């Protein structure tokens, strides 16, 4: 290991190019998320920060998927189509009567699940902290029966998906199938794309349940639950956006 003592022959190494040549290591450069470097075990807080950052980056591409679908909807809605019988251009966008009751119930389910997943997130964060306290010799904490918020969220999420399925059935009963009108095409498309993303979130939650049963370290569980919770909140917001879009553009 080389000691950190400059030889003195190169006091001022200024080319002015290549980005600030003479500054000492700056804290802004990041430390690679490797914590204090003293070998104090895995750096879970760095991993948590990194995974959250990855989630934000990933969500921006999810956003772009829905931005693209939205712009397609707006363009398609405004297009006239040639009517061969009358020889004129007409709008082929049929106004749908949405199964609003069902959709509102689903919205409520999803919002409640967003609350429960937030409680799960805070629960695991608290447990992770308490586990550190408990590791101090002589300290014991009273017995605790944690409420299975994660399990509740999974059930609520499944309820939402079933509810969406029922809404589809209702719409089909009213005669609106995928190819009936561009309005119904976009209804099925947007709800299905959202449901696929939600299913991904559910799978990660089931994974979180699995690793908790396998007794993986608490901080690892925490990371999984933390990012799933933020993802789930985003999905709830996204659903409200989609619902509003489908309502105002129906």
């Amino acid at each position, binding site marked *: 290991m*080389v000691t950190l003592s*400059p030889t003195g022959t190169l006091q001022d190494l200024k080319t002015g190019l*290549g980005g600030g*040549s003479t500054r000492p290591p700056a804290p802004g450069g990041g430390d690679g998320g490797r914590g204090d470097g003293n070998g104090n075990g895995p*750096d879970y807080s760095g991993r948590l920060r990194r995974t959250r*950052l990855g989630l934000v980056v990933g969500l921006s591409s999810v956003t772009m998927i829905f931005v693209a679908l939205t712009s397609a909807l707006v*363009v398609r809605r405004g297009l006239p189509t040639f009517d061969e019988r009358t020889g004129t251009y007409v709008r082929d966008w049929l106004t749908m009567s949405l199964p609003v009751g069902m959709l509102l119930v689903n919205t409520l389910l999803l919002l409640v699940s967003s609350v429960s997943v937030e409680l799960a997130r805070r629960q695991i964060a608290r447990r992770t902290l308490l586990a550190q306290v408990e590791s101090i010799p002589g300290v014991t904490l009273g017995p605790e029966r944690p409420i299975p918020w994660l399990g509740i969220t999974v059930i609520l999420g499944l309820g939402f998906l079933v509810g969406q399925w029922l809404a589809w059935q209702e719409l089909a009963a009213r005669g609106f199938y995928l190819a009936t009108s561009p309005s119904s095409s976009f209804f099925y498309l947007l709800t299905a794309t959202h449901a696929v993303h939600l299913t991904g979130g559910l799978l990660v939650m089931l994974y979180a349940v699995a690793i908790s049963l396998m007794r993986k370290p608490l901080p690892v569980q925490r990371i999984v639950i933390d990012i799933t919770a933020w993802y789930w909140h985003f999905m709830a917001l996204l659903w409200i956006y989609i619902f509003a879009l489908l309502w105002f553009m129906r």
Partner: protein
Amino acid sequence: MAGGAGGGETIMVAQDPHGHGAHAAPTGFIRKYVFSLDHKVIGLQYYFLALTAVFVGMFLSLLMRIHMIWPTAVLPLVGEIKPETYLQILTMHGTIMVFFVLTTAPQGGFGNYFLPIQIGAPDMAFPVLNMLSFWTTFVAFVVLVAAFFVTGGAPLHGWTGYAPLSALQSAGPGEQLGADLWITSIALFCVASLMGALNFITTTLDLRAKGMTLMRMPLTVWAWLITAILGLLAFGVLLSAGILLLLDRNLGTSFYVPLVVVNGQVMGHKGGSPLLWQHLFWFFGHPEVYIAILPGMGVASQLLSTFARKPIFGYRAMVYAIMGIGILGFMVWGHHMFMSGMSPYSAFAFSVMTMAIGVPSAIKTFNWLGTLLHARIRFQTPMLFAIGFVSLFVSGGLSGPFLAQPVLDIPLHDTAFVVAHFHLIMGVAAIFGIFGATYYWFPKMFGRMMNEGWGRIHFFFTLIGTYCVFMPMHYLGMAGQPRRYSQFTELNYLHPLIPLNTFITYAAFVTITAQFIFLFNLFWSMFKGEKASDNPWQATTLEWTTATPPPHDNFGGQTPVVYHGPYEYSVPGAPKDYVMQTDPAGVTAH
């Protein structure tokens, strides 16, 4: 200490081996070379996937060139080339080259291998995601190539997949299962690229070594970062567009298909707009051009500075120019659609924005030239390709402002002029970036040097060859030769152009032959090349401080500390003509 032979004084601090959710070095063959989590192995996997793809794509281009001048020739392996066969070859050539070569090699290949090392990280932020990203790309390639072998063969709608040709099963041979496979492949590729982009961005933002500020990152890292951001925002849109296309094709929706009659039969669709596909496609498609070329720009900057033994001219300007190109790249997609029907006001706006890209492009070009000015240049093979990159970038770039003007685009659209333009700037220039990167980083990747003599021969044949192929195409385009036509030997007005077309085909043949020199050199040098030192080019960036090839965690249990910008060459008063980024000498704070 893991510092290299030419590494100067290097400070390393102990690194926590579990810090980044790290994995231990794998031992079994499968985990080490097939389902590896190591970004270096994944980078090589991407590279060899692209190498396979490029030879497939190149073979297809040769078939097209042969067919153009000998339209009745019956070729071994493919037989007679009918007009629809020609279009299938054309579609697959474009798709393979754009996605599986130009997107895969510079970003997936070199980006994966060298981005973590250049910022001093032990691996990518999410190694499992990285592995998934590669294998999804691999499956996408297999699905695409499978389109050749299904009933009806490969699709014929071109790499741009314009509806309604791409949206109707009855539109032509290859538009049944072949087209579905094509869309599936593209969708898989989008998913893989999104995973990759996420990883690149998170890694660059969060895993930089101490002292590696943003403005000390090598320009290659900047290019990979901006490319990843472009991919992150563009591929989601293509994915959405592809899903709509699949629905139109298979479930009877009418997003893209208007009331249309095919062979006297009214299709069930009505009211859709082919323009909607074009807008969505080109919103992806134009950033994709920069996804292909930006890593090449990064490599060119790195190589020009290293071999000119001078700091890159205007580092900050280079960074801002990359950003400027990236941002403008999202605002110009309409210039692909001047002829598709567009309000003249929109066309004007798109035209102005497109011309504006000339500004950051010129900044980059002049900075590259400024770097070369008054330099004692070392003309080694990587440098030759870097200079070749600049040459091709200028040659291909200059025809851009022509096509950016609607009034000039009207006659030039869909002619060989466009083919010349995008092949020079997006195809060959990016390929030169890949070649430069290969010759430059080969010693780090394989521990041996590539053969210099064969490298030079490869360079001169490729440079002169590609100019001979693509320069005359500008003239063909201005003379009115349309692109995508399988035969024009029967068209009277194009008769005088046949000799020039024949010349291009011969030039293509020679250029393609020269690529086998490269292939031979690559594999020969892997086993028989001269042993490389840790820093054979006397370069300054972090990959040259570590062992050759780098250990599993890149820096052998250490993590580098960075003190300088990436291009400190010929610093007055320094003992050597280069100062490593990790060299603490000259730090005045102590």
